[in-house]
C-alpha cells in the first residue's frame, strides 16, 4: 500500500526566500505524526503543499498515492490554525456543510454531524450557533467538521493552541480515535507534551530544513540524560566530575542551589553518580532525569540554528 504521505527533496521558494529546503520524509498509513518546529520553520508551508494549496518549487510529493493534491479533496480533512468556522452557523450545520463539500449527501451529512456531536459530548452544541460556544467547544466542532466525511488523512494545524488542559485532553482522545479507525493524522504543534503522548512519529523542522525524523523515543534518545543535584552547594561543585558536562546553577529556596549537568553521550550513569557522592557534598536531592521530547526539540533546533549560522559564515 502507498504511504499516506511521501516527500522527496521538496523545496518551496517564494521569490528569494526559501520556506522549505530539500525536505524528504515518509508517513505510513494509520500513523499519528507530530510535525514540530519553531515559528517560521516551514511547517505551515509543508502542510499547504500536502493539501495541494501551494505547489512545490522542486521535488516530488505524494499524498495517498496521488501526486496532485487537488484530486484528494474528499479523502483529506483539514483543520486550520485558529478559527475556521462560520460564527452564525449551528454546530450541526457547520459540520454538515463541510461534509457536503467533501461529497457526503446532505441528509447523511446532517445525520453524521449530529451523531459525531453526541459521541463527543457536544450534543448541546448541535443547534447552537458557533459564536455562542466556548472556544474549546468551537474548536472541537471545527475538528469534527474536518473529519465528518471519514477522511483517510487528517491534517491539523496547531490544533491545541489556546485550549485549556481539559479540552486538550479531549482533542487528544479524538485524534487517538481517528488513528484507531485507520486514518493517518498529521498535526503541527509547539507543545511537545502532546506530541510525546500521542505521536507514533515526529518530524522536527527548523529554518525550512528537516532536523529529525523518527519515533518519540528516538528523538528523546538524541538528547542527553541530565543529573540534577540540589543542596548547600557551590556553583562549581560538579566541575571536573567525570562524564558530566558543564553545570548550570540556580538558587532555590532556603539558600540551596540546584545544579544541572548533562551526561556525556558515552558516560556511565553509575560512574557519574559515584563521582558526585565521592565529593562528600551536602545533598538534599539527587536525580537522574531521562530526556523529554522538549529537551530534544531545544537541542535539535539549537543545533540546526548553529549549523545554519556556520553555513552562513562559511
Amino acid at each position, binding site marked *: 500500500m502507498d504511504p499516506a504521505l511521501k516527500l522527496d527533496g521538496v523545496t518551496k521558494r517564494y521569490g528569494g526566500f526559501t520556506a522549505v529546503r530539500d525536505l524528504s520524509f515518509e508517513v505510513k498509513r494509520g500513523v499519528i505524526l507530530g510535525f514540530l518546529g519553531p515559528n517560521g520553520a516551514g511547517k505551515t508551508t509543508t502542510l499547504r503543499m500536502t493539501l495541494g494549496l*501551494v505547489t512545490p518549487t522542486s521535488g516530488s510529493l505524494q499524498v495517498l498515492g496521488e501526486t496532485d493534491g487537488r484530486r484528494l479533496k474528499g479523502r483529506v480533512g483539514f483543520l*486550520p490554525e485558529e478559527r475556521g*468556522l462560520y460564527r452564525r452557523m449551528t454546530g450541526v450545520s457547520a459540520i454538515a456543510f463541510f461534509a457536503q463539500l*467533501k461529497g457526503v449527501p446532505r441528509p447523511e451529512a446532517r445525520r453524521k454531524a449530529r451523531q459525531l456531536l453526541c459521541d463527543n459530548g457536544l450534543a448541546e452544541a448541535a443547534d447552537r450557533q458557533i459564536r455562542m460556544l466556548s472556544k474549546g467547544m468551537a474548536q472541537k466542532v471545527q475538528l469534527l467538521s474536518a473529519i465528518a466525511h471519514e477522511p483517510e488523512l487528517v491534517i491539523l494545524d496547531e490544533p491545541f493552541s489556546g485550549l485549556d488542559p481539559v479540552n486538550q485532553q479531549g482533542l487528544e482522545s479524538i485524534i487517538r480515535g481517528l488513528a484507531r479507525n485507520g486514518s493517518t493524522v498529521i498535526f503541527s504543534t509547539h507543545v511537545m507534551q502532546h506530541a510525546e503522548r500521542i505521536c507514533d512519529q515526529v518530524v522536527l523542522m527548523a529554518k525550512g530544513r528537516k532536523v529529525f525524523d523518527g519515533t518519540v523515543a528516538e528523538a528523546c534518545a538524541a538528547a542527553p540524560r541530565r543529573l540534577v543535584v540540589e543542596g548547600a552547594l557551590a556553583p562549581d561543585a560538579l566541575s571536573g566530575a567525570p562524564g558530566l558536562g558543564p553545570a548550570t546553577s540556580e538558587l532555590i529556596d532556603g539558600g540551596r542551589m540546584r545544579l544541572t549537568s548533562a551526561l556525556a553521550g558515552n558516560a556511565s550513569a553509575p560512574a557519574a553518580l559515584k563521582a558526585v557522592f565521592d565529593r562528600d557534598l551536602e545533598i538534599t536531592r539527587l536525580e537522574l532525569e531521562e530526556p523529554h521530547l522538549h529537551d530534544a526539540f531545544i537541542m535539535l533546533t539549537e543545533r540546526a540554528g548553529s549549523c545554519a549560522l556556520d553555513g552562513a559564515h562559511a
Partner: protein
Amino acid sequence: MSRLLTIAVREYLAFVRTVGFWLSICLMPMGLLIAIFATTMSAKVAPAPQVALLDFTGGAYVKPLTDAITAPDASPTSGLAGRPAIMVAAPGGPYATPDAAAAALKPYLVGDRKTPAGAHLDAVAIVHGSPADPQLDLWTRNIIEAGLQAKMTDAIAGAVRHAQLSAAGLTQDRISAIDAYAPKVAHFSPKSEAGRVSQRDNLPAFVGLALGFVLYALTLTGAGILLNSVIEEKSNRILEVLLTSASVPEIIGGKILGAAMVTASAMCVWAAVAGFGLFSRDPHLLGDILGVLARHGFGFYFALYFVGGYLMYATLFTTIGAFCETPREAQTLLGPLMIILTIPLVFMGQAVSHPDAPALQAMSWIPFFTPFLMVARAASNPPLWQVAGTAAMMFGLTAVEVWIAGRAFRTGALASGRFDLRLLLAGVTGRGERV
C-alpha cells in the same frame, strides 16, 4: 456543480436569516417614500410665515402684493413661497422713511423682538419710489427666499402693467383677457405612439431611470455582500478550508450565485412593495408601468445588463476581498472606484431629457457605467449596434476579471498581511504563491 450549489445555498441562507437583511430590505422603500414625501410634508407642517408690508408709494401695491403671497399655492415648493403667508401690521409704525422702517423692523426678523401678537416676523416688504416705477426692498429672516421674491416681483410687475395698460385706454376686461391669455401649444414626436406627446409618453423614460437606479442599488449591494463575506472568510481562515474542499471556480461561482439570490430576493420584495403601493393608490398607473415594462424590452435590457453588471462587480469585489483581512483595507482599495461610480448617477438623470446626448452615449461605452446608463437609456431605443457593442465591452471586461480572479483568488486567500500589488500581479502571472 454540487459543491458550487452547496456554497451558494450557504451564502444565501447566511444573509436571509439575519435580521439586518430584512431591516435593510424594508428600510430601502421606506427611505424612498420619506425622500419623496419629505418636501410636501415639511411644507404642510411648517407654520405660515408672518409678513409685514409697508407701501411708501401711496398704497397702490398693498392689494396685489397681499393677494400674491396670501393665496394658496397649488404646487408648493419650499420656503416662504410654498405656503400662504399671514399679513401682519408692521409693529412700531408708522415710519417716516423706508430706511427708518428697515432699521426698526430688523430686530423682529432676527428674533430679538416680537410683534404685539407675540410672533416674530419672517419677512418685511418695503415698497418705495414713484408709483409708476416702484422699488421693492425685501427683508427676510433666511437669506435664500427666492420664491417669495419671485411672487412679489410678479405681483408688482402685474400691477405696473395694469396701470400702464389702463392709462393707455384699455378696459379692465380687456386687460384681464390679456393676462389670461395662454398660447395653444401641441407637442409632437415621432417617438410618441399617438404622434402627439402626452404624459403617458414620458412614462418609459422615467421607468428606465427607475430601473437604472434599481440596477445600481442591487448590483452594488450584491457586490458589497460578497466583499464582506470573503473578508470574513479570509480573516477566519475559512477560505483555506474551502480551498481544500472545492476548486476556485466552484468557490467564486457559488458565492456569486448565493449573493445573486440574495439580491434577487431583495428585488422581489421591493417589486412587491412597489406594486402593492401603486395598486392601492393608482391602479391605472400600475397598469401603465406594467405595459411599459412589457412593450419596451425593459425585461431584456434589465436581464442583460443585470447579469453583466453583477458579474463584473461581483467578480471584482470578490477578488479584492480575497486580498483583504479587514473591511478598512477593502475600503482603501475600493475608495477610488466608489468615487468614480457616482458618475453614472449624475448621467442617469440626463437619460430622461437627453437620452441621445453625446456625453451620455460616450459614457455608456465605459464598461463600469454600461449597465446603469444603458438601462436608463432603454426607453429611447438606442441603436442596436450600441446595445451590442456596449454589452460586448462589458462582458469582455467581465471575462478578463474572471480570468484574473481564477488566478489571483488562491494567492490572495492564502496571503497574510496587508494588500500588496506585487502579490496580486504574482498571482495573476502565476509566478508566485507568497503566503
